[in-house]
């Protein structure tokens, strides 16, 4: 948001006609709706003044590469390349451009729509508006539909969104971005020895470093203390690896001896005091029905100096207490590792920079521990959990089922994948018949369509209201068929009809599919036509449909003859649907 408030951005840059071009030095100035470029040399012919409305997208080079480039692509295919002096400059412009494009794109859409359908227009809150914009930006298909129908004046904004309430609500809760979990993979310190020399190599990646820092707070602390004042990063990790190697040899005495000589090494070899302290704090928040530590308070038999029961069953510690701090058990490591993985990625920092990772981790840990154990809210939650746990579930009527809402971002993707599942189970039995299956399903759908039509015709005559169930069935049959086709064709690159079509045609086809779907949805939702408003709407929809019809015909004719048959197979249900809509409409009239 802060970027958007920043109304004007002025930076030095070079304008280039191509990437190789040395470019013209000058000043780039960006405002909310346009950007201008003035060359330093006033005699230079390069002078730009472009509206953001015409800019379709932007590309940029990665941080740290050779040139700091920003490439703005225009609607008509032209583009503007700027090279900046440094990356921060470029990034500022990049962010500005991104928001400017989004804004101008939106402004272009919303304005005409408001004037077109003033009756239905609702006062939208800024938040609501923003949400819609965001949805449009995320989903390009939706954007296309929106452009076609709302801006085209066929549907009002409100009508368009009314069918997508779910989508809006879903986004309402602003769920955070899904975070990638940590890998549940212990970094086993299996050193790579090359066999000949005595060299031992360890591999450290940023991911591993993050894991080490999260699992071993002492190492993290040591890193923050030592690097870069006392030693370089490389020295630090060498030392750490040395310590790990000593541990892996399980030679406690050798470890102790080395630690005595080198105090920095000792930090890695000793037990982690921070972990111990942390554990002590955490134990107070543990569910009391699990708290085994509390048992010790009541255990008068296993006094520390007596030991009956299990301990006799175990290896006696052979070593003196001076080595005690250097002993580290594998199980401890195992538990700590699992705890860290369970907690997940707590920080949101680029992994490359070791220092910032360490600092961020230290910060979050600190904040976490600062939360008081006697937190009232936590206490209450814990109590509730215990009382829930004590209930015997089947002696009681069930409580509200504890279900999480499904989070489906892109319904079409989800739908397709469901289709895929359905097909893959089918496919087990009818393997190899996929291509055939596809055409059969088209025919089937057509048949069912025809049936539906006749049914509706019949009902339409006897009863003015069309059975909504029937409408739903039709719509479903159509939608399923289309998307199954799409899925099917999309996934089999070799035999796909769609893929064999030229790209433009294919996209056009897909677009028509979705627009027909949209139109049908609205058409049926306006039934029964009882008011004048609905009548005009239906008429409008019908007109829009009839406009698509010739387009489809065009596509059919434009493709090569060998593909024409298959394309017509694809197009047929769509044509049918538009014809069918006409019929339904006529019936009504």
């Amino acid at each position, binding site marked *: 948001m802060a970027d958007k408030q920043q109304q004007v951005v002025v930076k030095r840059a070079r304008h280039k006609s191509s990437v190789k071009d040395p470019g013209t030095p000058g000043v780039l100035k960006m405002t909310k709706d346009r950007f201008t470029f003035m060359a330093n040399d006033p005699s230079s012919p390069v002078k730009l003044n472009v509206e953001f409305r015409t800019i379709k997208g932007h590309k940029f080079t990665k941080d740290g590469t050779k040139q700091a480039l920003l490439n703005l692509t225009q609607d008509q295919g032209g583009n503007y390349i700027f090279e900046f002096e440094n990356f921060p400059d470029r990034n500022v412009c990049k962010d500005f451009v991104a928001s400017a494009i989004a804004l101008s794109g939106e402004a272009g859409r919303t304005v005409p729509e408001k004037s077109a359908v003033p009756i239905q227009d609702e006062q939208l809150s800024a938040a609501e508006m923003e949400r819609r914009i965001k949805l449009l930006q995320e989903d390009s298909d939706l954007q296309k539909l929106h452009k076609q129908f709302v801006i085209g004046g066929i549907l009002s904004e409100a009508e368009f969104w009314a069918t997508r309430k779910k989508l809006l609500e879903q986004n309402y809760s602003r769920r955070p971005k899904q975070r990638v979990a940590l890998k*549940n*993979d*212990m970094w*086993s310190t299996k050193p790579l020895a090359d066999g000949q020399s005595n060299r031992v190599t360890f591999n450290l990646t940023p991911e591993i470093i993050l894991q080490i820092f999260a699992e071993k707070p002492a190492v993290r602390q040591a890193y923050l203390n030592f690097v870069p004042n006392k030693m370089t990063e490389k020295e630090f990790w060498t030392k750490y690896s040395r310590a790990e190697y000593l541990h892996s040899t399980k030679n406690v005495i050798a470890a102790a001896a080395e630690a005595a000589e080198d105090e920095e090494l000792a930090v890695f070899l000793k037990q982690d005091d921070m972990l111990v302290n942390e*554990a*002590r704090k*955490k*134990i107070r928040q*543990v*569910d*009391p*029905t*699990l*708290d*085994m*530590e*509390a*048992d*010790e*308070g*009541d*255990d*008068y*038999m296993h*006094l*520390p*100096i*007596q*030991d*009956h*029961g*299990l*301990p*006799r*069953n*175990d*290896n*006696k510690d*052979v070593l003196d207490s001076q080595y005690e701090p250097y002993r580290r*058990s*594998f*199980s*401890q490591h*195992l*538990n700590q590792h*699992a*705890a860290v*993985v*369970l907690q997940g990625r707590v920080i949101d920092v680029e992994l490359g920079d070791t220092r910032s990772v360490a600092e961020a981790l230290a910060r979050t840990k600190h904040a976490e521990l600062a939360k008081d154990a006697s937190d009232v809210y936590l206490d209450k939650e814990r109590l509730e959990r*215990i*009382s829930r746990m*004590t*209930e*015997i*579930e*089947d*002696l*009681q*009527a069930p409580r509200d089922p504890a279900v999480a809402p499904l989070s489906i971002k892109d319904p079409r993707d989800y739908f397709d994948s469901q289709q895929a599942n359905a097909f893959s189970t089918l496919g087990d039995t009818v393997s190899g018949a996929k291509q055939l299956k596809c055409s059969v399903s088209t025919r089937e759908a057509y048949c069912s369509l025809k049936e539906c039509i006749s049914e509706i015709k019949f009902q339409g005559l006897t009863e003015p209201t069309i059975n909504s169930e029937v409408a739903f069935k039709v719509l479903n049959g159509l939608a399923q068929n289309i998307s199954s086709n799409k899925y099917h064709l999309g996934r089999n690159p070799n035999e796909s009809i769609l893929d064999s079509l030229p790209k433009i045609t294919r996209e056009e086809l897909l677009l028509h599919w979705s627009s027909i779907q949209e139109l049908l949805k609205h058409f049926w939702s306006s039934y029964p036509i009882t008011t004048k408003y609905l009548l005009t709407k239906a008429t409008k929809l019908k007109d829009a449909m009839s406009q698509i019809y010739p387009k489809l015909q065009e596509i059919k004719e434009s493709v090569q003859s060998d593909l024409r048959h298959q394309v017509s197979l694809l197009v047929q249900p769509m044509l049918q649907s538009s014809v069918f809509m006409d019929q339904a409409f006529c019936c009504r009239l």
Partner: protein
Amino acid sequence: MKFQIEDVTVYFPYDNIYPEQYAYMVELKRALDAKGHCLLEMPTGTGKTIALLSLITSYALSKPSNPIKFIYCTRTVHEMEKTLSELKLLHNYQLQHLGPAAKILALGLSSRKNLCINPTVVSAENRDSVDAACRKLTASWVRELAAENPRIPTCSFFENYEKSASEAILPPGVYTLQDLRAYGKLKGWCPYFLARHMVQLANVVVYSYQYLLDPKVAGIISKEMQRESVVVFDEAHNIDNVCIEALSVSVRMQTLEGATRNINRMSQEIDRFKATDAGRLRAEYNRLVEGLALRGDLPASDAWLANPALPNDILKEAVPGNIRRAEHFLSVLRRLVQYIRGRLQTENVEKEGPVAFVASVNTQAGIDQKMLRFCYDRLHSLMLTLEISDTDEFLHIQTICDFATLVGTYTRGFSIIIEPFDERMPHIPDPVLQLCCHDASLAIKPVFERFQSVVITSGTLSPIDLYPRLLNFNPVVSRSFTMSLTRDCICPMVLTRGSDQLPVSTKYDLRSDPGVEKNYGKLLLEMVSVVPDGIVCFFVSYSYMDGIVNSWHETGLLKEIMQHKLVFIETQDVVETTLALDNYRKACDCGRGAVFFSVARGKVAEGIDFDRHYGRLVIMFGVPFQYTLSRILLARLEYLRDTFQIKEGDFLTFDALRQAAQCVGRVIRSKADYGMMIFADKRYSRHDKRSKLPGWILSHLRDAHLNLSTDMAAHIAREFLRKMAQPYDKTGVMGKKTLLSEADLEKMGNSNLGEMF
């Protein structure tokens, strides 16, 4: 729901009840009517605790003229919390239906460590240091001094509590330890002493076994409980071990060194008192002449652990003259410590009875039996006289006196074993002298005598006729209930072969075989990929678990297992284990799924439930036999054979199988729950072993599941999980009711239900 059992109206906080719960209540009620003891076995997962609680509280409510007190003993503090929260649920229900008449006072009692709210005291490491830190602030002499000198610190909570005197009472309600602490904070009263006081007045007391069984603790906490009490020992399958441990002592070299330090410190104190306050020592002497080992009216804050011998066995006579003077007593202690040190120097394992031991003490150190017997009380008196408040420093000498008193009091049922080194590590000298009790009936005898009804109950008490013999009592009711299942929601399997068809076992000769370790690992790997949510694995010992987990790590099996689930492990450090368990639950809650590695006979196996999604599968790797070369165990087996004619092998198998059953029984909590159990050892397929498992497991162990290999087990697991995912009718099928509603109970009447099971 509420219903009648004969003349008692039972309030039960749920809408339905299992038939076996009902039958359990009927039996329990009969035992209460007869004012006798009873022994009841009911499988886990049938809601034993709530049935017990609701019957006994309802019974008490129905007889307002003659209220009975209800003492509920649990093994651990977390079980105490669980019980109290069930009681809370029940109490709320009773309040709803009966109004204020149903008000009761119920509370849990634990040590200072779990109840103290004074931040300086409670931050101490362990129980003994918390106790000592508390004494330093609250002992009567400290408070006397503080009255004169305000710079001496006292505990404000205790002072407030003392000030409010008789007003300091808890209003009726159910108090968990946390509630007690919260109430204490609210009022500014010490929750520990408040609870200790309220125990006498409460209707329901929930505390640990040891508060009744260990004479040291029972002597100060449970002394004044009325006879009209119902005592329940829940999860009592290990009760014989608890009884035995309560009367056992072991002495090591460190103990002796510590004891010597303590004696020196005391003699310094005596010298100091002689110089400053000789009258005090003289007063003590006079008191001892009069035959009072202790001042009768000790303030609660001074009370120490009581005599380790049982109340009936303590001599009610004057302390012998030769230990009345403080310095004489110290020299007796010195001689005793010296004598024991001499005995520990031995090269061979020695075993003798208390009589022989006392005789040899008498001849070599000149301490007779009577002096030994009074050691503990004499020490206690001396420490009070010397105003020693850092009692945690004096644990060593306490242990020695503990030992002396026990060895001087009992002549049979005990033996003294001296081992110069651990059997498995003969090159490391680690001498230990152990006084071990073999007779479990000794410690529990006063409980049976003092209280009118004692209920011993657990999920696994089979063979049920063994317990009355071990504990030497006559139950009026002794019954084992089976579980009526709506569907086959448990699936026990015996796995005898690994994926390569070779036998698996933790038998001594196979134990460290890499093939067996690999097969066990492969089994777990198969299972983690099949079973959702939580899996629990039990191993036979810590060392075995460490070894096998390390070898899985080295061979990469662990890494593969971790691809499917998080791995947590029990360690000997309770704090860490508790945190690991907490994380394990979180991982199961959030759907990540986890495996927990644990040890049979360990702390987790003893008391943590892995019900519902916290445990869909338990794998018992091996048969958890006790360490059979242990001298203590051998001595106990010998005693059992001589006294009860129980064969060694039988007892060992019985003990191992009850542990195994206990481990696997943790997965089921209710009939809606389901879980699998894998016994992974070829020895389980033998009839003599298997038949010792409790009936409710055996009845589900199909013949086809007796001799499986890994792949077959994985197949069965898949089938089972699929079957469990299907919807079913909770109330039971085809006339066999497994869930009764209020109407059902009325219809059936009381008459014929008892015979249904």
